[in-house]
């Protein structure tokens, strides 16, 4: 998202190991998944494993719920769009750390990360394929899908 760096401070890029550290340190983390999961089984599988191993709460948006539910992932909410979920995170302050995965519209996620940055205290980590400058921490851009999957796998390995 080259054109989207009009920020006072860009996300720190983050490695899988640090993601795990942060997950472990968080009081109540949550994973929010996007519509990219509809066409990407490996992401679904990743969420499944992540929940299994880390017991992470998952909120599904973007219709990603269908794929997750079919893979027996337990989702806390399934019908709300990212807008609602962001409002929810901001307003109820139940979580101290939020991870974002698999948004097919990275620009939409970018806006929500911006909203969270400015108007909430929640920590945000993007583990999407593209760098998200408005997050607090973000994976870098992965030009090759395989490298991206490897990074996700690394998370599972270190867990």
């Amino acid at each position: 998202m080259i054109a989207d760096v009009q920020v006072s401070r860009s996300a720190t890029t983050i490695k899988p190991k640090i993601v795990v550290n942060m997950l472990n340190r968080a009081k109540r983390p949550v994973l929010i998944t996007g519509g990219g999961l509809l066409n990407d089984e490996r992401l679904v599988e990743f969420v499944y494993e992540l929940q299994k191993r880390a017991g992470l709460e998952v909120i599904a948006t973007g219709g990603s719920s269908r794929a997750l539910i079919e893979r027996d992932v337990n989702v806390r909410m399934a019908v709300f769009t990212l807008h609602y979920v962001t409002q929810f995170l901001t307003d109820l302050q139940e979580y101290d750390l939020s991870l974002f995965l698999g948004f097919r519209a990275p620009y939409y996620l970018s806006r929500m990360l911006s909203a969270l940055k400015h108007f909430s205290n929640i920590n945000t980590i993007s583990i999407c394929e593209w760098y998200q400058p408005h997050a607090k921490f973000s994976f870098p851009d992965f030009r090759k899908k395989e490298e991206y999957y490897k990074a996700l796998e690394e998370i599972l390995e270190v867990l």
Partner: protein
Amino acid sequence: MVMDIHLNNVRIHIGRIVEEDEWEPMGPTPKPDVLDLRYWDQKLLERYEPFYAPMQDFCNLCTMGPCELSRNKKGACGIDLKTQKARIVVLACLIGASAHCSHARHLVEYVVEKFGRDYPIDLGKDVEIEAPNIRLVFGIRPKTVGDLEAVLDYVEEQLVRILHSTHTGQEESYLDYESKALHVGMLDHVAMEVADIAQIVAFNYPKGDPDSPLIETGFGVLDAEKPVILIIGHNVLPARNIMDYLEEHGMENDVEVAGLCCTAIDTSRYDPKAKIVGTLSFELRAIRSGIPDVVVTDEQCIRADTLKECSKVGIPVIATSEASARGLPDKTNENIDVIVEDLASGRLKGVLIRDPDKVGEIAVKTALAVRKRKGKKKVLMSREEVENEVRKCTGCGRCVFSCPHCLRIDVAMGLAKKGDFSMFKEIDRSCIACGKCEQACPKGIRIVDIIMSVGMDIKVKGRSRAGRGPITDTEIRKVGQPIVMGTIPGVIAAVGCPNYPGAREELGSIIEEFLRRRFIVVTSGCHAMDLGLYFDEEGKSLYEKYPGVFDGGGLVNVGSCVANSHISGAVIKIAAIFAKRPLRGNYAEIADYILNRVGAVGLAWGAYSQKAASIATGFNRLGIPVVVGPHASKYRRAYIGKFWKDVWWVYDIRSRKRMRVEPAPDALLVCAETKEEAIVQLARLCIRPGDTPQGRQIKLTHYIELSEKYLGCLPDDWHLFVRSEADLPVKMKDRLLKILEDEHGWKIDWKSKKIVEGPIRQYDPGFNPTIVEHVYEKYTGEKLLR
């Protein structure tokens, strides 16, 4: 209401109308001033809290900046980030509304000049409520086109007043800027109504005809064999003159007139022989194809490099609008044959012609002359050229990062190098032909041309129904009750632009889902065009499959962008005709009625423009939620209700109580990321507190079915909408009762299969909700303590 007094050349029209025409008592807010409906906005904004997603952390609107406002800091003028974003939203809406207002001004000015101020407004016997927005907001029944001038005077004055409020050092609460944005949105619908009424009555467009003609639509209408005039924009006047010229000279079959964007729609409403190429997403493609012999531009949503792109392929341009003069020399009063020769010879790349009535002759003659000179047109790149271009690619990925849709050109190029061009087909389906990839490419690769050449079906042709204008009073009489009861499960208004998140077909598949379920679907603008290109297995477009009637299962194309006013108009008319609520200057009562009872929801899947922002905001003030595509998150603001908050209450006029209600609808503006989400949200947001059990049952059935179909589970919140067992979908009743008991702790009497305890409220057949104090007082005759 308007009179023409001729006194030594002094023409007079009415500025302020105190009112002598007593067709209906005047409501509390005729010609509302900037703050007059703030009380209504405050009701809305209490529920639908504005949600901000800044595009940038800075403001640089004045020279005390740039100010870094991150984390809601205040700038040098004291404004905080939220308020600053709300201010930008107001600006965007103002730009949008002023576009429609100026468009209306052009049309009204023209019509008054040609036909006189007294030219009657007659939309046919079946459209007695001719101007629901004008009645509701301005408080008159316009009888002649002259009456429309006074309406525009008012709109212009208000727009300038609100523009004033965006100056540095004004509002300090984002809620006040939001109220202003809502005011602008409302005015926008009034302006659009003026514009569309003026053109309908003056140019004899269809007047609410459900069987308006089917119009050839698609890239395939560009006929490389004939001289082609391509018209682009929104203002029908020059295009109309072209059609007239062709007809007057018996040349209708010699020259092809193809339109892009709303001008295309409106030209086809004027003359069904006109053809529609498609939306803004096809402009660069149409020019690059080299098929047009002359391009005529008017205004709005026209690429700002039209002249540059046309010049590259030798197409002369005729600019016709004050809003887009394109740096061209003004030749309005020059000799036409000289102009034509200058254009055809390439001596001039284009001209500005400020009189629409001169455009026809110039455009036609130029098209003929260019065609003659050019000979057979070359269309698209050859495969060899494509291969040469592809070879230059280094795979650097800059195109991907600049693409609004992050389309993986780099990957497609890589495959193409190995001879596999298939991915460009896929890219073509989502590409909006914006050209940013080419701007970014360090190798100067003609990416758009490659996509077109390899991926696009240039022969594609479908049909869309010509914009029919208003919904008739008869239709409203028929569907008013079922809509308010809920037995017609909803009205889906698919309006807006082509900045889709994914493949263009997604829109069609969303809409067909609702048509099959016998929702009413209305459409306009670019969405209306794209729906003409969504085919079933037999190659029939949606318009050919579904009737054009405003009834369950009907697909109604009202027309161009400005025809959106007929959609708000139809909803207003439901309150007027079915519920017999007085319209005149009675905005809050009607909006309140709609919010609580009329299950209408907008869908702007590709919303890109400031006009779309303003239109949506106008729907919102009227109590109509809008679901937008993910790009619309860049509008920076949404209206998301919090179902977990205690803001879901109404006054019940019957029981005279303030009572809790279900959070329905629980958003006024919300983005969906995928079509799956959009479908479910649309169904969900059709639910209204006013639904009868029968209606609620139907709505819940659709909501639950769609959620299960697309999201794989029951919706998280379905139980919030259950008032009694009668609301439950029949086939799922037992299962749902069980869930209510097990998961939500409701008490169920299993013998009678009745809900004993649990719902937010009980259903009461006399339930008569309002959130507006004066409406409550009016119908109860009781004063509320505030």
